[in-house]
């Protein structure tokens, strides 16, 4: 299940190289990416999706179709609510067609669904990064029993069949605020993958000459952590977080697909795909549109993460 282990890609990546010289600068990364057509395309697509997500209320106000507005005229209730017109009811009125059975505008739901997906994925990434960095550095910096405890907790969490467990927890919890629950649950099982890498790198950094020197000259622990070690973790953190976002988008969509994600009528891509399952033979567009958006978004983020990694790796090698 590729959706279950969001950071698995990362373990083959930055953990391999030890950061030597202080990290590659943001400007250099950007410069290198500009010359890569795949990266440019990905960035373009992501910018479009983000724009759609941000401007969703504005655009739906223009089209006049909100994400939860039923449009009985767009569907044929005698045929079980099949959208009228070809390609799932694609028309000037409904750019991506309408949902069968209720005539909700697919375009509006894609935009609002993007909001949900990105919000959850980015929040989860922030939370996992925070947890991962704090615990990873604690373990790597102090070593000893702190390291022992944190490492055991990480082993324990990584041994958990997270997908089954996430579904079990989410389905038994009261449905309250599902988005927050999703972020918490994803983060709890996600941080060890990042913390493991951070711990490893911190462990090597602590014994480096420049850290030893800073320590000898009487720098406080805080200064050591924030001035010497953290900046050196930056490039691997950039790579890992860019690769984590698509993983979490996939996880959120997967959980929503299984019916334990955000609750309807709040739109989410995974949930749209889930409800399109029974319609795929009659109205393939209903399935194809959210499927394509999910696929392209994950792909774009993965390509971007991959290219950033290539650039930073090259930077370190030089």
């Amino acid at each position, binding site marked *: 299940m590729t959706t279950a282990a969001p950071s698995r*890609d990362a373990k083959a990546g930055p953990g391999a190289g030890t950061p030597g010289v202080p990290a590659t600068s943001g400007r250099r990364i950007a410069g290198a990416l500009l010359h890569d057509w795949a990266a440019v395309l990905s960035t373009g697509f992501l910018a479009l999706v983000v724009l759609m997500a941000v401007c969703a209320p504005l655009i739906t106000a223009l089209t006049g179709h909100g994400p939860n507005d039923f449009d009985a005229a767009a569907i044929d209730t005698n045929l079980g609510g099949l959208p009228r017109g070809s390609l799932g009811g694609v028309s000037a009125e409904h750019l991506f067609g309408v949902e069968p059975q209720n005539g909700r505008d697919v375009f509006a739901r894609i935009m609002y669904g993007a909001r949900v997906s990105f919000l959850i994925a980015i929040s989860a990434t922030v939370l996992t990064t925070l947890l991962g960095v704090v615990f990873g550095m604690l373990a790597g910096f102090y070593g000893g029993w702190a390291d022992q405890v944190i490492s055991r907790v990480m082993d324990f969490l990584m041994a958990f069949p997270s997908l089954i467990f996430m*579904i079990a927890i989410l389905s038994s919890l009261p449905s309250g605020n599902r988005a927050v629950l999703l972020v918490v649950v994803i983060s709890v099982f996600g941080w060890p993958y990042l913390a493991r890498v951070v711990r490893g790198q911190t462990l090597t950094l602590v014994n480096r000459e420049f850290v030893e020197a800073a320590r000898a000259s009487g720098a406080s622990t805080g200064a050591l952590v924030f001035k010497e070690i953290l900046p050196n973790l930056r490039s691997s953190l950039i790579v890992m977080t860019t690769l984590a976002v698509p993983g979490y988008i996939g996880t959120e969509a997967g959980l929503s697909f299984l019916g334990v994600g955000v609750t309807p009528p709040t739109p989410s891509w995974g949930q749209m795909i889930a409800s399109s399952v029974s319609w795929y033979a009659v109205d393939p567009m209903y399935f194809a549109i959210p*499927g394509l958006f999910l*696929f392209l978004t994950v792909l774009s983020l993965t390509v971007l993460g991959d290219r950033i990694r290539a650039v930073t790796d090259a930077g370190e090698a030089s």
Partner: protein
Amino acid sequence: MARYLAGRIAGLVLILFMVCLFTYLIFFKLSPDPAVMICGKTCTPERILQIRTLLGLDQPFFTQFWDFLSGLFAGRDYGSGANLIHCPAPCLGYSFQTSQSVWEMILDRLPVSATVAVGAAVLWLVIGIGAGLLSAVREGTWWDRTTMGLALGGASIPNYVLALALQYVLVVKLQILPFPSAVAFSDGPLLWLQSYLMPWIVLATGYACLYARLTRANVIDTLAENFMRTARSKGLAPVLTMRRHALRPALTPITTIFGMDFAALLGGALITETVFGLNGVGKMAADSIAKNDQPVIMAVTLLAAFFVVVGNVVVDLVYTGLDPRVRIR
């Protein structure tokens, strides 16, 4: 070596114990009353109480947890008199919703999950490593670039999207495959192959893409290492160099990851099994979650954790055997 092994097994038991405790605690605290689910439609408060007693739900947490643990090793009895239900060791619990011991249910479903996992694993190993090797040897060519591009794309398709897309094209439109189902091999090898082909492809795609990229990266790294240069400078033929010196170090890390991935799959490919309606452990987990059949959810969680943890140990052992650089003191 023996001491190392003993240590690893002790750690394994500890982690499994923690998983048990944690899972039990979560369900104990969070989930709705299982007695209500078992009670059925004509439930009365007295009946709920009776069921709670029968299941031991009226006991304090640690007593319940202890009953569960001891049941694992010594078996367990529910109820009394003529209605006594004996659940022999290893008793992972008894599902009152299906009137079956959970262990029996899992044994029933495991063959399907194993078939899905093994078939997919063969597919992704062959395709992933093959494509990765070819790309590494032809680094920088159009073949390399195309393969790696496809690998990125393939790894980005959520498997349920791929599953539905394939089903639409191959089964509904072109009608070249039947709808997937858990056909037994004895029903005819061809039908068996056709029925499982799509689940295998869907499950293998993501892994194959990842393995292709990993293999390529590892082989390229190895080829650049000093001992390889030496080997080549000795005048060994490229194919021979590849076989004798590069493959083993390059593929060792893949073994590690494969072990983990495969172990995780044995616990049930939940999404794939659900989408295709294959009655494996994963689908059972999904169904049980929908019915809130707690003993089953608990057991599947534990089983999956067991596979992951044991897989971890096995991988480490294999690793030490494969890689001369890692030796246990």
